[in-house]
């Protein structure tokens, strides 16, 4: 049966209502101060408004890949007092690549890399809810923590949620000195670097995205040379900053032996 044009128009109007009503409901909920729970599960919002400006975070002017890591020359200084540090390295899969060059730097400067914890495929949300870091801090009592995360959340848009998690996570360090290392961006992020920078104490976040680091075959992680160059840039940052009261001169050579305990976990296994 052929429907009349007015019926046809009415059907289009009904289509608009069928699509529009649920969407309006979701958006009203998104922009309201209400948070609903179903049993213990939060009813999630669209999170469309999580841009940095709304969160009061300034977008950094750091340009991705603007500095070629292999052109950065090592800064060597012995001016600083070298108080031996008890070092902990924690982070996502990129932390796994930093283990060896970090160990070499520690060895060359009299510090001890106590333990590393590589939490594969993790994000700041995983670290915030994991008790593993608290356990490690309790057990090893480090004086310096290197923390690298962000590769798995470059496209994250729920920045408010991640800022809350980042603030909660950084509280775990208490008075321990730390360097929060941003991810080696293979693509432009949606602001996660700036969120981490705002959560860390001033000067304690390192924008890795500024560096152009040689990549491994997977195109996502740095290769061996890349990790060494990255470590060199981190060491330079430490040497130049007055927040870190220890020496971090480059080692004479890099090798792939470590004495510390290497812990690995995966978000999928938990």
């Amino acid at each position, binding site marked *: 049966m052929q429907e009349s044009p007015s019926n046809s128009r009415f*059907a289009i*109007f*009904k289509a608009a209502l069928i699509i529009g009503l649920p969407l309006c409901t979701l*958006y009203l909920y998104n922009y*309201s101060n209400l948070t609903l729970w179903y049993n213990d599960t939060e009813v999630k919002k669209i999170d469309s408004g999580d841009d940095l400006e709304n969160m009061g975070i300034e977008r950094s002017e750091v340009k991705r890949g603007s500095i070629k890591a292999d052109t950065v020359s090592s800064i060597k200084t012995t001016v600083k007092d070298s108080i031996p540090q008890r070092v902990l390295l924690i982070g996502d899969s990129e932390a796994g690549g930093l283990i060896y060059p970090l160990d070499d730097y520690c060895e060359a400067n009299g510090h001890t890399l106590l333990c590393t914890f590589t939490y594969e495929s993790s994000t700041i949300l995983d670290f915030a809810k994991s008790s593993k870091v608290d356990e490690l801090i309790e057990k090893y009592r480090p004086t310096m923590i290197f923390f690298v995360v962000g590769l798995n*959340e470059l496209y994250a848009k729920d920045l408010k949620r991640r800022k809350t998690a980042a603030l909660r996570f950084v509280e775990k360090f208490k008075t321990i000195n730390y360097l929060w290392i941003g991810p080696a961006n293979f693509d432009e992020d949606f602001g996660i670097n700036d969120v981490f920078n705002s959560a860390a104490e001033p000067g304690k976040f390192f924008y890795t995205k500024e560096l152009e680091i040689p990549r491994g075959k*997977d195109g996502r992680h740095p290769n061996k040379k890349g990790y060494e160059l990255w470590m060199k840039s981190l060491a330079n940052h430490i040497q130049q900053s007055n927040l870190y009261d220890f020496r971090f001169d480059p080692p004479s050579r890099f090798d792939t032996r470590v004495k510390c305990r290497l812990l690995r976990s995966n978000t999928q296994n938990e």
Partner: protein
Amino acid sequence: MSGFWNIDLEFDRILSDLPLFFKYSLNPNEHWVFTQTSFLLVLSFFLVGYAFFKSTSRWKLAYLIGFSLFFYYKSSGPFLALFILVILCDFLFAKWIDRLEGIKRKVLMLVSVSFSLSFLLYFKYTDFIIENLNSVFLTSFSKQNLFLPIGISFYTFQSLSYILDVYRKELAPSKDLLSYGFYMSFFPHLVAGPIVRAKDFLPQITNPIPFTTVLLKESIFRITVGLIKKLIIADYFGKYVNELEKMPEGHSGFEHFVGMYSQAFQIYFDFSAYSDIAIGIALVLGYRLKENFNNPYFASNITSFWRRWHISLSLWLRDYIYIPLGGNRKGKFLMYVFLLTTMLIGGFWHGPYWTMILWGLGHGILLALHKMLSSKDAKTSLWSRGLGTLVTFHCVTFLWIFFNANDLDVALLSFRKIFFEMNFNEFTFFWRARPEIILLSLLAFIIVFIPMEIKQKVINPILCLPLYLWPIILLVVLQAILQLRDSTVVPFLYGGF
């Protein structure tokens, strides 16, 4: 209960978010696609306005073109100008070609085809050419890292089919720019097809489908199913596939084996979801786009697969490359050569990578082999059809490894892991670590291999549900998607072609 009434809307946030909506983003992960809630919300407002126009009104066309161009602008920004230029030039070229005869007609057709192809070649293949020149001649030209305008592969093919149809006198050129602009820019097929032919689409402008309640239910059902296929099924498989891609050497043979099926399902559910939503939205607007998928993995041979998979592209390649080359008119040997050439071009169209070329070549070889070995009179039993389906599915699935791999080394590594380092004993460990992938794969197998008739029996009662239930169904589906997915939105795979 009183707390419930103390709901405040954050008007400041709404006001500060509004200007962001009018900004474009060239980031593939921020493209304004059908699965974004903001798109669906704006679509509903757009439909309210659309309902006021008469079905054949010129203003309705202008309104729809305006929305389509805004849709394109949101994902391509300044490249909208290029799209408009292509539309204008094609429109004028077609009119001009129609007036000429003989060699002049042919020359102008070639000029027009070269003009349309030049943009595709420049934006899509420049870096591929530079990279290969550098490796062959040891030159050091630097790569351009050009932005690939959204939908350029699709609208170039549409523009070519229009020009070639006019040249072959199979289609009269569009008399007015509004109709032609509408055909090219119609947003449901703009980003990732289906590739629509002018001769199928232009007549619908003067004779649109009356939009009935039955069609309304069908269209909303298609949109809802598309959202589930893309945002729940395809994206979940996508997460696992991405894990493999991140560190292919760090995964076992069994993980690669599961990854191979995951890739096959991800690609199918992702792309068919786009087509479902596109067809559903077009239907609401009063236009019917042709089906792009017809249970492709159920095909019992590779020829049948290509009649069921990305149908609009297969037909395009057949009509504008394979048949003009000579098709099956110049003997068997040349037919095989033409098949290989057509599929090589098809592979290269998908992406400027050697892996894509190998993927196309693989399909070309399989098609030629099938033509060589099959006979027209052979009667097939149910068992042989079943075996054919199994073999075809696995051939296609193996070839997806090339399609999905970042480079040839990764593809070869996957093959090595699957064929030489496979250990089925790992199933128990895998099941413990990732039970959801196994369960989802089983579900996908069932969905993919159930015959269409049975699927229809499941769909029919759903389509009979009263209209007032549909907003609730859509709300539940959208909220379930929000609950299940993380914040990472995987762009439509074909949106990048």
